[in-house]
C-alpha cells in the first residue's frame, strides 16, 4: 500500500475478491532454528503484503533475518527450521506444503535469484544442458526441437548472445553473465508472478551491477512480475523498488514507500543507517557510524533489539517492551519504535508474538483491511492483528 490512489483502487478489488488483489501476504511469520538448548530466533512476527507488479525491498544487515524471510517464502529453509505464521500466494497457503508442490510452484509462480551466480550452476554441466532441464521440468509443452530456440531467445532478452555458447561450461562466463543467465533461467520456467532476489548484485562490479539492475527494471516493465528484493544496499533499493521493509534483529522495524523512507525515515535505526552511508562525491566531515554491532537474535529477547545502539532511547520502556509495528502518522508508513505513542500503547501486543501458533493473524488482519478508508484500513488491519495476538498471548500466559 504505497499511495492513496493505489489503496483506493485495491480496496474495490478487495471488496470483490481479497485473494485476487493481494499477490503475496505474509502474516506473523516467525522462524526459529534450534541451537543447542536455545532457539535462534531468526525472524519474529513479520507481516506484510504485496500487490501484483509491486517491487518491495527488504533492507537489513547480516543477521537481520531478511534472507530467512525470503527463503521461507520460497520454501527453501532447512527442515530444522521451526516456521509459524502464514505465507499466502494468490490466497493459497504455502507453509506446510509438500516439497513436490513447492517445487512446481518455484518453477512456475516464484522465481528465485541467488547472490552468488557462480555457485548456483553445476560446474560440470554445460549452460545449455542446465537451461534445457528447466524447460523439461517446467515447460513440458515446449517441443524438444524448440528448446534451443527458446533458450536463445530468452538469453537474448537478458542481453546475452547465446549462439554457440550453449555448450560452454559456467566457468567460461563472467560473474555478470552468469547472473544474467540465472535471471534468464527464472524467466525460462514460465512467467513467474513474483521474483525473489537475494542480494542479486552484491557480488558484482559496479558497472555490471548497474546493468543487472536495469535488466530487472526492464523485465518488470515488460512482464509485470512483482519483485521482492533482499539487499543490504539502500542505494540498490532506492534505484529499483517502490516500497521498503527495514529489518533489524529479525523484525520489521520500518515499512514505508521508498520515497518516504529516504525523505523522512521514522525509525531511529533507519535514520542512523542513512546517515552512516558514505556519500559520493565525498561530503565534508566524518561518517557517522552506528555504534556497536548487530547482536545475533537469540530467543528470549526483551525490549527493542536496537536499544543498545540507539541514539534516541526513551528510557525503561525500550528495555522492557518490544515495540510493535504501527502507523507513524505518515500515510502508508509504519515503524516499530516507542517514539510513536501508538506504538507504546500497542507495543506489547503487536510485538510479542511468540510464534508458537501455526495460524497467523493474517485472517483477522485481512478482515480489518476491508474497513472504509484506506489509511483507516491500515490502522484497523494493525489493530486486528494486535487484538488477535494479545488474545493469544493472554491465553499463552494463562496456560503457563
Amino acid at each position, binding site marked *: 500500500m504505497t499511495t492513496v490512489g493505489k489503496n483506493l483502487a485495491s480496496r474495490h478489488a478487495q471488496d470483490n475478491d481479497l485473494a485476487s488483489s493481494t499477490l503475496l501476504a505474509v502474516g506473523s511469520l516467525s522462524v526459529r532454528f534450534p541451537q543447542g538448548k536455545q532457539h535462534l530466533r531468526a525472524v519474529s512476527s513479520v507481516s506484510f503484503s504485496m500487490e501484483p507488479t509491486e517491487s518491495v525491498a527488504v533492507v537489513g544487515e547480516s543477521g537481520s533475518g531478511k534472507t530467512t524471510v525470503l527463503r521461507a517464502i520460497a520454501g527453501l529453509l532447512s527442515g530444522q527450521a521451526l516456521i509459524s505464521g502464514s505465507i499466502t500466494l494468490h490466497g493459497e497457503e504455502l507453509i506446510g506444503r509438500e516439497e513436490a508442490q513447492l517445487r512446481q510452484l518455484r518453477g512456475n509462480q516464484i522465481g528465485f535469484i541467488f547472490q552468488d551466480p557462480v555457485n548456483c550452476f553445476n560446474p560440470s554441466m554445460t549452460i545449455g544442458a542446465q537451461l534445457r532441464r528447466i524447460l523439461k521440468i517446467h515447460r513440458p509443452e515446449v517441443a524438444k526441437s524448440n528448446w534451443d530456440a527458446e533458450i536463445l531467445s530468452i538469453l537474448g532478452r537478458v542481453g546475452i548472445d547465446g549462439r554457440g555458447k550453449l555448450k560452454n561450461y559456467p566457468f567460461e562466463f563472467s*560473474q555478470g553473465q552468469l547472473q544474467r543467465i540465472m535471471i534468464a533461467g527464472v524467466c525460462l520456467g514460465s512467467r513467474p508472478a513474483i521474483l525473489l532476489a537475494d542480494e542479486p548484485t552484491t557480488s558484482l562490479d559496479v558497472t555490471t551491477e548497474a546493468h543487472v539492475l536495469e535488466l530487472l527494471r526492464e523485465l518488470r516493465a515488460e512482464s509485470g512480475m512483482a519483485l521482492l528484493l533482499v539487499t*543490504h544496499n539502500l*542505494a540498490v533499493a532506492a534505484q529499483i523498488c517502490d516500497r521498503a521493509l527495514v529489518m533489524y534483529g529479525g523484525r520489521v522495524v520500518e515499512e514505508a514507500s521508498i*520515497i518516504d523512507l529516504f525523505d523522512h525515515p521514522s525509525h531511529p535505526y533507519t535514520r542512523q543507517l542513512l546517515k552512516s552511508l558514505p556519500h559520493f562525491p565525498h561530503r565534508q566531515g*566524518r561518517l557517522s557510524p552506528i555504534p556497536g554491532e548487530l547482536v545475533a537474535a537469540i530467543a528470549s529477547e526483551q525490549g527493542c533489539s536496537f536499544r543498545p545502539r540507539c541514539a534516541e532511547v526513551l528510557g525503561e520502556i525500550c528495555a522492557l517492551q518490544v515495540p510493535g509495528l504501527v502507523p507513524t502518522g505518515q500515510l502508508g508508513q509504519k515503524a516499530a519504535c516507542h517514539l510513536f505513542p501508538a506504538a507504546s500503547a500497542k507495543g506489547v501486543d503487536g510485538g510479542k508474538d511468540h510464534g508458537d501458533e501455526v495460524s497467523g493473524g493474517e485472517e483477522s488482519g485481512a478482515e480489518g483491511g476491508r474497513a472504509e478508508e484506506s489509511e483507516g484500513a491500515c490502522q484497523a488491519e494493525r489493530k486486528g492483528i494486535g487484538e488477535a495476538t494479545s488474545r493469544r498471548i493472554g491465553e499463552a500466559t494463562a496456560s503457563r
Partner: protein
Amino acid sequence: MSDRGDSTGTVAVVTEAVGLVKHYPISESISSRLTRRPKRKVHALNGVDLKVHSGETVGVIGESGSGKSTLGRLLLRLEVPTEGQVHFEGIDLASLKGEDLRRLRRNMGMVFQNPYSAVNRRRSVLAVVREPLEVHDIGTKSEQNLLALKALDLAGLSRSVAQRRSSELSGGQLQRVAIARAVVTKPRLIVADEPTASLDISVRAQVINLFADLRAELGLALVFISHDLGTVSYLADRSIVLYLGRVMETGRTAVIEREPLHPYTKALIASIPIPDPHQRRQAPDRGEIPSAVTPPPGCSYHPRCPLARPRCRTETPPLEEKRPSRWAACWEVPVMAAHEGGVLVGDPHASPPAGRSR
C-alpha cells in the same frame, strides 16, 4: 625497533613503484604443450607507476580483474614483479632476500578483505595481535603484550576483548583486530585490500573512520584498494583508476570524482547506485571487463568506450598530464595548453597532502 620520528613532518616517499608488470602463466594442457602453441598468461599489471608519500593515502580503484590486488601484493613483495621495481624508502625490494627482506617487512602492514580467513580464529585476540612482534623479535614478552594492547586501543577495541578467542568476535571486531595487528609494529606503509567490503554497512562506516584516525595519528602511508568509490572518496588524497592492469586516470580524488577525465572513470562514477529514490539512473556503460588473458589491443578500454576511434584500437594511449596535476590515458582527452606534460604519476608536484580536513 623502528621509529617513525625521523620521517614525520617531512614528505618522504615511502614506497615507489616503477613500471610494474606482472604476468601469471596459465598452466598448459599437454596437448597445447605438444603443439607448441604460444604460452598464455594473465596480464595482471601492464606497467604501473605509483608513488606514496608519508602521511598520504592513495586509493586504488578498479573492478575485479583490474589488477588492483596484484598491485597491493607487489608493493609488499608478497609477489615478485615480472618487470619493474618497487622501492621502499629508497631500497629496491628485489635486492633483498630472506632475513633482510623479513626485517624490512616490519615496516609494512597489510589488511585483507576477509578478516575471517586472515585471522587465526583459534588464538586469543592478544596472541593474534602480538604475533608480528614475536616474528620480528621486538621487545620482551611483557613489552609485546603492552604494545599489542596499545594497538587494540588504537583500533577501538576495549581491553576486555584481548583475552577472548578470535572466533567469538563479529566480522567488524575481527577486522579491527586485523587492523590492530597490521599497525602493531608501527609500520610506515599499510596496504589495505578491500578492508570494508565484507562488513555490514553500519560497521563499514566505523572502519572507514578508524582508517582516517590511524592515518592522522600514525602519519603512515596508506594504499587503500577498493572497488567502492564511495569509500575511497572518504579516505584517499589521491587515487589511481586501474583497468586491465593499466592506469586510466590519476590525480587528486576530490578532483577526479567531481570531474573525471577518462571515459572509464566517468562510466564507473555513473554506475554507482545513488541512495536516493528521486534520482534513478540508467546503466551508462556497455559490456564487461574483458579477460586479462587476451587484453584488447590498443587502449584496453576501447571495446566498451563510447568515444572509441580507429586509433584507439591499435595504439595504446600514454598516461599524460592532461590538466595541471591530472593524468589520464586517453586519446580523446585533449591536453590543455600551458602544460607540457610528461608521464609523471605521483610527480612530486602532485603534492602530498597537508593533512586532509577531517
